[in-house]
């Protein structure tokens, strides 16, 4: 009897393990989907809000990293993520051209760039508005504001300053586009001379941190409206320029060619454009901030499909 006892114990152990393993495989493990998103989406809390709904609906484990557009696309190229959600049309075009994006199906159409929400960039600054950009209106207001900031900043860099993301993010890309549209050579006139004069401050950091820095330094900066609204409570900065064609900010999702889970990636794209989710996006933040942080997809503005 004494010799048999350990054997029985061993059999029981093996059976237990077997049952455990079988039990597990019977239950489906949630599929992992890795997403790299621009910080401006993440800092508003939108992704946290959507994550649970998506995971429930598709039995997925959504793993989201908030990155600047530059590194987000880099992660996508290397296949370190399955989906990227960014907002830099030029970089996105290059990504697609490089063959890093798979075509996704939305509303019966096939496309590599899936636009799914938009809002606007705004120029914010101290309430005192030393460069006097608050009164500008019209479709060229952003360019005119940048010109004023550059001129006043060069004259009095202690009073008029501009904080730039400087991190090759989508927002940074937009800022560069506005400088160019305003007639400047970004590298020479702004980064070169502006840094030397001291009015142009290249922070090299995320949107939230850039807003905090602009607030501390009582400087102007360019921000997407969603992040600004989310941070507004802690800041003394006020929105100064909210109009202008160039300020449009469209968010895109792309399925990465080198990703490991294109099926679930397609699910996410479908999800983002689903009418009931679009309604959630449109309503997100309204109770807290009094206005929407994002507008739902609109073919007139975002383009087809």
């Amino acid at each position: 009897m004494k010799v048999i006892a350990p054997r029985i114990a061993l059999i029981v152990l093996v059976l237990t393990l077997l049952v455990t393993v079988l039990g597990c495989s019977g239950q489906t493990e949630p599929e992992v989907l890795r997403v790299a998103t621009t910080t401006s989406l993440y800092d508003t809390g939108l992704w946290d809000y959507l994550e649970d709904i998506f995971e429930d609906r598709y039995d997925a484990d959504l793993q989201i990293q908030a990155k600047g557009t530059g590194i987000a696309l880099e992660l996508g190229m290397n296949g370190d993520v399955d989906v990227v959600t960014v907002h830099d049309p030029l970089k996105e075009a290059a990504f697609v051209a490089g063959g890093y994006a798979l075509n996704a199906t939305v509303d019966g159409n096939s496309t590599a760039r899936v636009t799914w929400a938009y809002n606007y960039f705004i120029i914010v600054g101290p309430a005192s508005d030393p460069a006097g950009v608050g009164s500008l209106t019209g479709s060229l207001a952003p360019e005119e504001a940048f010109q004023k900031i550059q001129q006043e900043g060069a004259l009095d860099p202690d009073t008029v300053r501009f904080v730039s993301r400087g991190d090759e993010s989508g927002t940074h890309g937009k800022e560069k586009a506005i400088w160019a549209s305003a007639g400047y050579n970004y590298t020479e006139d702004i980064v070169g001379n502006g840094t030397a004069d001291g009015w142009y401050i290249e922070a090299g950091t995320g949107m939230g941190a850039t807003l905090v820095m602009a607030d501390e330094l009582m400087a102007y900066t360019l921000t997407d409206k969603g992040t600004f609204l989310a941070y507004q409570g802690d800041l003394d900065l006020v929105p100064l320029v909210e109009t202008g064609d160039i300020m449009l900010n469209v968010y895109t999702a792309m399925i990465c060619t080198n990703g490991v889970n294109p099926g679930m990636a397609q699910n996410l794209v479908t999800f983002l454009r689903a009418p009931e989710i679009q309604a959630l996006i449109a309503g997100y933040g309204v109770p807290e901030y009094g206005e929407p942080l994002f507008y739902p997809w609109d073919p007139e503005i975002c383009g087809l499909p």
Partner: protein
Amino acid sequence: MTEIWDGLTKAVQLLISLDPAVMEVAGRSLTISATACLLASLICIPLGSLIHFHHFRGKRVLINIIQTLFSVPTVLVGLFLLVLLSRSGPLGELRLLFTPTAMVIGQMILITPLLLGLTISALSGVSKEIADTATSLGASGSQAIRLVLKEARYAVLAAVMLGFARAISEVGCALMVGGNIRGATRVITTVISLEAGKGNLELAIALGMILLLLALIINIVLNRLQQR
């Protein structure tokens, strides 16, 4: 793998060409961390001696706290300073946030426990009879302390080295209170973080190599000093 190789090649290129932007950032890293380390040493070595040579209630507890703070997270120091130096903070009037001075202060705070603790243990390594002998030969209290410090000079130097290494390699505090502003508060570690964020991995790796090289040079120089 190609990225690492490209990074190495780029590092060599940047070093050989003495790329002005890289040199500027490396120089700033050195200046800020060396200043922080020097100032912290000027405070911590005398203060550590004071703690070591005096008996008072709660000394053990104090030393325990100091040792615990060896591993204070850099972002915590950054956060503390951010709140302190912010425009709305108690020291906001000084206008120090996002300046190299703020980074020096941050690194000083960061390495102070390390320098204090290691100075105390360096002094503990010197036999009590050394101080006794000095006193019996007519050394005043401070003269005896200076002699014991001299006896412990290599261990103290090692403490300073470690402090410098921690200062120059930290990124959390530098990013938070320095702000990584081009031409002003951009140092090697914050540039690495920025370039990696831009997806510019080669440059980030190159800068990382330069940081390691810098650490190596400093170590060799100090080791030479120790062997004398």
